[in-house]
């Protein structure tokens, strides 16, 4: 077991179950040294594995049944026929690794490119090991402790989803899998069967959390799993901004990552969910994100996607009651060997709802980015308004950008706008900047940063700064 691991009930039971040892026997192992893990995970997925995951987590029967049913759905669903080419062998993957096993890597095994990026981003030592999977836990108890106290005084629940299943069954049973049912798509079904980690947030009526909540604050060995499951409930008139992940490159030896994020924003509530993901180049990142916004509520997704081999991600807002608003701002950067198939989905299911999609993509060095978006207006959603703006910047002739905008309107009295542009970095712009002393690389980077600036300025300050540094890194060596 990880040294200094947070002694939550879930973690200790993880070890005990599956070894046949009594829970109380846990102390007989000296987990501080490299004692071999006793439970041996195996590759592949079947009912046995799924049941075992549930058992190891000491889950209630309803969750175990949910997982098993989801597995059946997963098996019966075809692969998505749109998006990228998903070359994944489902039987060749570890679906659940205990933290101790995830920790098996050494710093030497982490690729140099990743280490170099850590250097350039100035990521502290402790975080580097955590982010690269060398260390299963990120130690920031100090920061987190007082914050947690503050939040819980206001009735806010902020924990990992595994813990929430045990400690908040009433909320979980009401909402878990209700916004994104396992039947939604093959990868949602997969996640529902084998999920682990992720955040659970409940913000009570009228409580407004002024600072962004970050996944960082939540200490858990499983916080960065392959199949995270996040559920956020914003009660009436409440407000939260959640920031997921971080801009540092996430390195993992497992190639399939498939998260599910479900959000409910009740009457006049507000929720903003910010993600910047920067995966290593071997990763398939197939994510389902959806929010339901009720009367007068506001939901915003801000989504930055860098790295990965293939990302498919289309955050959605379903505007369920009059006056609900949804906004999706996304940035995608595709470089060599990468395909970013990202977009957004707005569903107007009630009158007077309004939505906005702004998508910016950059393709470079043979990278491919696609915008795939849907705006749907249900019958009766009168006076709904939506606007879609998607801009693509292509940095060279090897790279590619496509737009797939879908619009389904089943109501007359609506206003829907769509604008798309594809541009290249102009020689005249480059010349203007270089004539003032910027190198060609600096000038291109500046033009690219300018291109995404309207979205970057929506990010919390430190993320905006890191986003710009990441763009610089991505741009490095792009001009020869």
């Amino acid at each position: 077991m990880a040294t200094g691991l947070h002694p939550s009930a879930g973690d200790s039971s993880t070890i005990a179950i599956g070894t046949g040892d009594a829970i109380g026997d846990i102390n007989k192992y000296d987990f501080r040294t490299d004692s071999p893990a006793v439970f041996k995970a195996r590759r592949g997925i079947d009912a046995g594995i799924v049941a075992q995951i549930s058992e190891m987590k000491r889950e209630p029967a309803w969750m175990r049944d949910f997982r098993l049913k989801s597995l059946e759905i997963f098996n019966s669903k075809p692969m998505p026929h749109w998006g990228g080419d998903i070359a994944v062998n489902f039987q060749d993957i570890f679906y659940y690794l205990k933290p101790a096993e995830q920790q098996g890597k050494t710093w030497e095994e982490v690729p140099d490119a990743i280490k170099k990026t850590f250097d350039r981003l100035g990521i502290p030592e402790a975080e580097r090991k955590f982010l690269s999977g060398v260390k299963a836990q990120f130690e920031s108890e100090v920061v987190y402790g007082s914050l947690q106290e503050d939040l819980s005084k206001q009735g806010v629940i902020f924990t990992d989803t595994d813990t929430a299943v045990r400690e908040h069954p009433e909320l979980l049973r009401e909402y878990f899998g209700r916004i994104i049912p396992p039947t939604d798509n093959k990868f949602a079904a997969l996640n529902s069967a084998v999920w682990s980690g992720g955040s659970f947030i409940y913000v009570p009526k009228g409580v407004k959390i002024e600072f962004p909540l970050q996944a960082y604050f939540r200490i858990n060995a499983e916080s960065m799993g392959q199949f995270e499951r996040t559920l956020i409930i914003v009660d009436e008139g409440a407000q939260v901004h959640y920031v997921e992940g971080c801009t540092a490159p996430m390195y993992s030896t497992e190639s399939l990552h498939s998260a599910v994020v479900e959000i409910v924003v009740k009457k006049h509530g507000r929720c903003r969910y910010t993600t910047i993901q920067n995966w290593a180049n071997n990763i398939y990142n197939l994510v389902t994100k959806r929010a339901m916004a009720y009367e007068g509520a506001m939901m915003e997704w801000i989504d930055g996607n860098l790295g990965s081999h293939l990302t498919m991600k289309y955050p959605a807002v379903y505007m369920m009651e009059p006056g609900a608003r949804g906004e999706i701002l996304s940035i995608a950067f595709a470089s060599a060997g990468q395909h970013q198939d990202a977009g957004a989905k707005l569903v107007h299911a009630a009158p007077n709802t309004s939505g906005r999609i702004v998508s910016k993509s950059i393709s470079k060095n043979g990278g491919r980015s696609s915008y795939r978006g849907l705006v749907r207006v249900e019958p009766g959603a009168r006076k709904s308004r939506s606007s879609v703006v998607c801009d693509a910047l292509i940095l060279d002739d090897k790279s590619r950008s496509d737009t797939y905008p879908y619009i389904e309107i089943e109501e007359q009295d609506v206003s829907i706008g769509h604008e798309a542009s594809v541009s290249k970095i102009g020689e005249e712009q480059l010349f203007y900047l270089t004539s003032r002393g910027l190198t060609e690389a600096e000038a291109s980077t500046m033009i690219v940063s300018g291109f995404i600036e309207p979205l970057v300025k929506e990010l919390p300050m430190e993320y905006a700064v890191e986003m710009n540094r990441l763009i610089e890194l991505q741009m490095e060596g792009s001009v020869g």
Partner: protein
Amino acid sequence: MTAPGQEKLVISGLHAAVDGQEILKGVDLEIGRGEIHALMGPNGSGKSTLGYCIMGHPSYEVTAGSIELVEADGTRHDLLAMEPDQRARAGVFLAFQRPMSIPGVRLADFLRHAVTNVRNPDRKEGQELMPMRDFRSELKAKMADLSIDTEFARRYVNDGFSGGEMKRAEILQLAMLRPKFAILDETDSGLDADAVRLASQSIARIGGAEMGILIITHHEQLLEHNIPLRTHVMLGGRIVESGGPELAAELHKRGYERIRAAYPEAAAAERSLQDAATSNAPHPVTA
């Protein structure tokens, strides 16, 4: 002719082409530091082309001749062998006739980067920029000198600027970058009467004895506070005549008829260039 012990920009026998079409047909020009030269000439005679060639625009191919920086001790630096950013670092500046807009990039951020590079010619990519505080206070002072609202620094480079605002932003960059040699390509066009007077004064102040300036203009006002040592007239891609301030006054009053008559060869070149320009113009697209 410039004095021997003076740093100068020397252009000789310069020929340049765009898309295989020759535009400059042998330009000779010497500008010493501290001197002001005016360049006039009818539309399309090649004035901006000369500016672009000096700065290294990739669309303009120099087919013959040279552009050099010659130090006071006689050391020569071949500008044609340098990228545009290296030329900027070597102390050359071009104020654009039509500045480019760079959406999303704040004028202050761009300028801080530019100033850092130009003042530290050996700076490598990724190294520290000029300290923010020093940069800000210097920028603020320069903006005040030029009566530019400080709010401007936060705006995106030339994005949605009025014609006059763009030109003032160019002068601001000139003031911040303090080059050895500056080409000001119609920096007076688009400015209202008061702004031209202000620009004229500012340029005189910025320039001083340290800067060699080539002022490309169709008007006289900019020269009011920047009395040119020499005025040159370009026609058909060549400098056909040079003279004192009286030449600028004459051209402004009487136009280019005398010049065309006096230099029939250049006038013929001008006509053939115009024909080429019209035959190359894209045909209107029918939908």
